């Protein structure tokens, strides 16, 4: 019986000839990523070792990545002290894949991992962050876990008791209209699947549209696969994956891409034709409350956010800067831009995008998760509305349960910044 990409990856990682959906496996882990919540992982890791007579030493420091992004620079003493504790652990165990708060090496974990070549096709990646699904864009099986589970991985080097997820095949065809792209595709798909439609399942992406899509776009769709409940999204590695890894991530070693078998067993197949897809908006307070832009155009917004692990990459900034060029952010609306990494920040600076944003009246912030999760910067006031390229719009997400968050692409965000209301970028800002 044929296997899907994830089944093949898990079989290889578990040392089995073949696995099928719902089998229980213990795959070896190729990369284990954490951010500030490494503070809790360290706590749990120490607890595992208590009474064993063994020193709490991670199984393989080279397979651990720690990136500070959720609250950078620290918003208060608690975070700062946890970051300090993590730095001590990193130094003690010689963890080289550590990205501190820096303009050159820093950024959001889900940007750092691909751009530094830490994730490779065919590998197993776990992260203490639900958007770890992102890295499936490079053809690996990458999924989110909790801090205690990560402590277990640090101790053993394997993920325990993993149920092989059934796979849903998503075939995407057609060419996007101008100002419509991967974010609109994934929002549309989440609307169709619902917030739980892919629970405990993998979304495996195929079709001409995916083959023609850049790695950046693939990161966007895999990133948000979790919003349909998916364990992971995955794009089988192809020529674009190799181009990205060689040219942008500087990977020199051999690559071992994995393709699905022709007779792989899928739970179901979903087909999407994007040629007539309109810009999509996820409306409060669930990500699956998705509407075509025509149904929400004209809604006044007080805060525009461009950035995050979903849409803070160079192409997102390029699109937004192109729309904003020579225009102004509307009075009564504020616009915040968070490049996803220091590298992207530098590239956007050199390309002149950041200058365009500032001239338009936007505020360019440092790389990090920023306002996405409502803890650090860019909180909303009571009854305020944000339009953001981020990934979640749950009640209270942007720091205030009395506010609303709408989700969109960077093109929609930029066009709407000019007008102060949700605006279809195909019609342009007034």
């Amino acid at each position: 019986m044929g296997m899907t990409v994830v089944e093949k990856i898990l079989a290889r990682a578990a040392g089995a000839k073949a696995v099928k959906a719902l089998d229980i496996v213990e795959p070896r882990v190729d990369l284990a990523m954490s951010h500030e919540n490494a503070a809790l992982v360290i706590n749990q890791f120490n607890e595992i070792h208590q009474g064993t007579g063994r020193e709490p030493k991670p199984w393989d420091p080279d397979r651990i990545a720690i990136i500070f992004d959720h609250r950078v620079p620290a918003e208060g003493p608690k975070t700062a002290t946890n970051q300090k504790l993590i730095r001590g652990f990193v130094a003690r165990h010689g963890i080289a894949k550590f990205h501190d708060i820096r303009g050159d090496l820093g950024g959001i974990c889900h940007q750092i991992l691909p751009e530094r070549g830490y994730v490779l096709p065919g590998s197993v990646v776990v992260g203490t962050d639900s958007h770890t699904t992102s890295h499936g864009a490079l053809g690996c099986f990458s999924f989110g876990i909790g801090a205690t589970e990560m402590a277990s991985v640090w101790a053993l080097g394997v993920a325990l008791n993993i149920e092989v997820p059934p796979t849903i095949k998503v075939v995407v065809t057609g060419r996007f209209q101008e100002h419509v792209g991967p974010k609109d595709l994934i929002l549309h798909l989440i609307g169709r699947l619902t917030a739980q439609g892919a629970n405990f399942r993998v979304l495996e992406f195929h079709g001409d549209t995916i083959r023609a899509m850049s790695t950046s776009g693939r990161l966007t769709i895999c990133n948000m696969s979790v919003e349909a409940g998916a364990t992971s999204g995955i794009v089988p590695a192809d020529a674009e994956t190799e181009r990205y890894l060689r040219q942008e991530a500087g990977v020199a070693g051999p690559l071992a891409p994995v393709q699905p078998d022709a007779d792989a067993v899928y739970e179901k197949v979903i087909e999407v034709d994007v040629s007539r897809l309109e810009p999509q908006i996820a409306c409060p307070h669930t990500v699956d409350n998705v509407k075509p832009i025509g149904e929400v155009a004209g809604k006044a917004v007080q805060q525009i956010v461009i950035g995050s692990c979903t849409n803070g990459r160079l192409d997102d900034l390029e699109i937004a800067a192109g729309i904003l060029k020579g225009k102004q952010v509307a009075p009564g609306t504020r616009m915040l831009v968070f490049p996803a990494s220091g590298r992207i920040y530098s590239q956007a600076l050199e390309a002149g995008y950041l200058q365009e944003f500032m001239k338009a009246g936007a505020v360019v912030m440092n790389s990090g998760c920023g306002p996405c999760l409502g803890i650090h910067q860019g909180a909303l006031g009571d009854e305020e509305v944000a339009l953001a390229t981020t990934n979640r719009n749950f009640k209270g997400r942007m720091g205030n349960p009395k506010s609303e968050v709408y989700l969109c692409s960077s093109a929609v965000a930029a066009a709407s910044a000019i007008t102060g209301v949700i605006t279809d970028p195909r019609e342009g800002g007034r």
Partner: protein
Amino acid sequence: MGKVVLKLGKDISTDDIYPGRFMATVLPTETPQFCFNDRTEFNAQLKAKAIPAGSVVVADENFGCGSSREQAVSTIRGHDLVIVARSIARIFLQNAINLGLNLVICPTIEAEAGDELEFDPGKVRNRTSGKEFATEPLPPARQAIVDAGGLIPYTRKKLLELPAR
């Protein structure tokens, strides 16, 4: 047996259970204060210790969707609440098993705030309405972690089976 103290709808996110703005607080000893923080009345009752251990939160499908933050589990566990949900999001379910949260998956549960629920193997009985509802067993691999008392003792045992580094 436990009384339903909170009835929730579907797709209750971890931002609802434990808002992101409290994520700097990580230790299970400190997270319970922020449990359902933005449901201010319920949170106040929890903090006033007005809700007895073993009380039940009933939820519809996809409870715990969203972030992987483990605080969303430790905050509920800190108050010894029982979660009865029609279905549970993946990471929350795994975190709950790992930390030993008392959780029942009951795909057809019908209960209102104030109802008394009784738990038997394989079923939940709503003593107020008189109706019974079948529960869904955990997959065996997850049950093994529950039986070990959580992931920390389970991993500890596995660690001791390995040669020392």
